């Protein structure tokens, strides 16, 4: 079972392309460019994010995802303009960061501190009122049993949950997460994504980077596909395959006497099909995976099992 199966909530997509900056947008990025010497890490990136939306930077390593995230937080100097909640990030970075919880890719805390000391230190910087009760948050993230441990004794999964707890300390409206599940095993990844999904349902705006398609499809309302720092596609996840022109191969397992009929039926509807062991193999275009299943069902052919390649 993949994450798509577990986390299935999909918000209506807000549209594709580059929406013009309007007052309804929480984040407006215009012509963001970042050069490291002769290397252009982010090249003229423009996009907007509405309140409550989950937007993913997707792309291979080196596509510019992490650099874009760092620019959103004003951690590195950049060219272009980033407006978050009406404030210019390059002029009012500190004020903007009050409204953002950040989960970094590399989980780097001060190893000598304990979990409690770390929470207290960052809570003070985030102006969380003294006496704030961390326990409900720590209970929800299953961290309560580890509060006295030094950071260096925490596993990768616990550190990731601590990073999320720190990001949520001041209950910011925006969460920015850089490859948040990169260091997690499958089980921890699914739990983490479920929690992110819960946060999204509670109205948080999420901007995250990932190179895992299943994460993107499980969580994002819109995907910004980056290649060599450039925005290639801005689309809802369910349109990605269509926009990218990906074809899918379906393996359909059928009763042996039905195989020949199935091949005839699918061929008659223009689908490339061939016999494959206990069934047939069919090539389908983006967004048409249901078509061969429907055709065989209408022809009264029972499908015993199927796999997607």
């Amino acid at each position: 079972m993949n994450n798509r199966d577990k986390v299935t909530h999909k918000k209506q997509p807000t549209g594709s392309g580059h929406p013009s900056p309007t007052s309804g947008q929480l984040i407006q990025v215009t012509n963001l460019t970042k050069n490291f010497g002769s290397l252009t890490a982010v090249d003229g990136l423009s996009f907007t994010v509405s309140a409550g939306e989950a937007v993913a930077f997707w792309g291979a390593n080196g596509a510019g995802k992490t650099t874009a995230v760092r620019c959103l937080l004003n951690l590195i100097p950049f060219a272009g303009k980033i407006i978050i909640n009406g404030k210019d990030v390059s002029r009012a970075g500190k004020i903007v960061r009050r409204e953002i919880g950040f989960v970094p890719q590399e989980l780097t805390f001060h190893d000598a501190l304990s979990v409690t000391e770390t929470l207290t230190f960052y809570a003070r910087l985030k102006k969380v009122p003294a006496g704030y009760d961390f326990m409900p948050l720590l209970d929800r993230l299953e961290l309560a049993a580890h509060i006295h441990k030094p950071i260096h004794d925490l596993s990768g999964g616990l550190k990731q949950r601590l990073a999320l707890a720190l990001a949520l300390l001041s209950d910011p409206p925006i969460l920015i997460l850089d490859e948040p599940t990169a260091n997690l095993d499958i089980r921890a990844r699914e739990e983490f994504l479920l929690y992110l999904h819960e946060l999204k349902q509670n109205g948080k705006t999420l901007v995250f980077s990932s190179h895992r398609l299943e994460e993107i499809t499980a969580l994002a309302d819109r995907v910004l596909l980056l290649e060599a720092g450039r925005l290639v596609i801005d689309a809802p996840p369910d349109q990605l395959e269509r926009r990218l022109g990906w074809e899918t191969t379906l393996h359909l397992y059928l009763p042996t006497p039905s195989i020949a009929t199935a091949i005839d039926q699918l061929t008659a509807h223009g689908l490339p099909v061939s016999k494959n062991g206990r069934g047939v193999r069919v090539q389908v275009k983006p967004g048409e995976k249901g078509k061969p299943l429907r055709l065989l069902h209408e022809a009264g052919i029972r499908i015993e099992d199927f796999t997607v390649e």
Partner: protein
Amino acid sequence: MTIDFENILILAQKELRDALRNRWFLLYALAFAALSLALAWTALSGAGDYGLAGFGRTGASLINLVLLIVPLMGLSLGAMSLAGEREQGTLLYLLAQPINQIELLLGKSIGLALALVAALVLGFGLTGVTITLTGNGNGSGEISIYLRLLLLSCLLAVASLSIGFLISAATKRGATAIGLALFVWLVLVFLGDLGVLGTGLMLRLDVSQLLALVLANPLQLFKVAAIYNIRDNLEVLGPAGLYALRTYGSHLFPLLVGLLLLWIVVPFLGTTYLFRRKGAL
């Protein structure tokens, strides 16, 4: 840019606590305290008299100890501060919080400066208390000389810290920063006197140029100020010392203190400039 002093305080507290947990720093601090006590004990041995020396003689002996150890403490602590955190990635995470760069730099530098001052107060304090308890203190005049020496040592420590900070801001890796800091320490400590002497001879510098060369080194600044503090004359420094005293007269001590303060401020401004250009990376 608005500065939130509470943020500076929070960062300074954390930095101070980290420094006091740092084994190397504690080792330096304890070594300094032990050596200053040992110096107080042996300061009279040159006169054939064994026992604890008074504030004046102990202070004179402490000058060389301060010149050797204090810059090493300041430089290494400053060098590791930003570069170490940058290498670990904690600097990036820290700057992703609602703080600005100047608050981070001020918080770190104040915290580390307080740690250095605490180490010096411990060393000078232990020695001072021991001298007083054994009845070797020679009046309030010597105590004030001793306290001024502590103040000058603190200024040298913070100036070294500021130079270490600049090195740290310019480098990405902790090991590089520490290597550079040790190199600077070697240059300032061991090439200070010899370098001035050699340059003076080779370039046939006149006495005013020789003095300028001396005053360009924060360690030499400390040394001149510390000797002047104890002896009220600079004959021991030769023509450059005599020239300095004749030229600046009663303004010499404030001038030396002012120049030490410049060695704190100017590298810190350089650090701020570099840090702004490089960001958290």
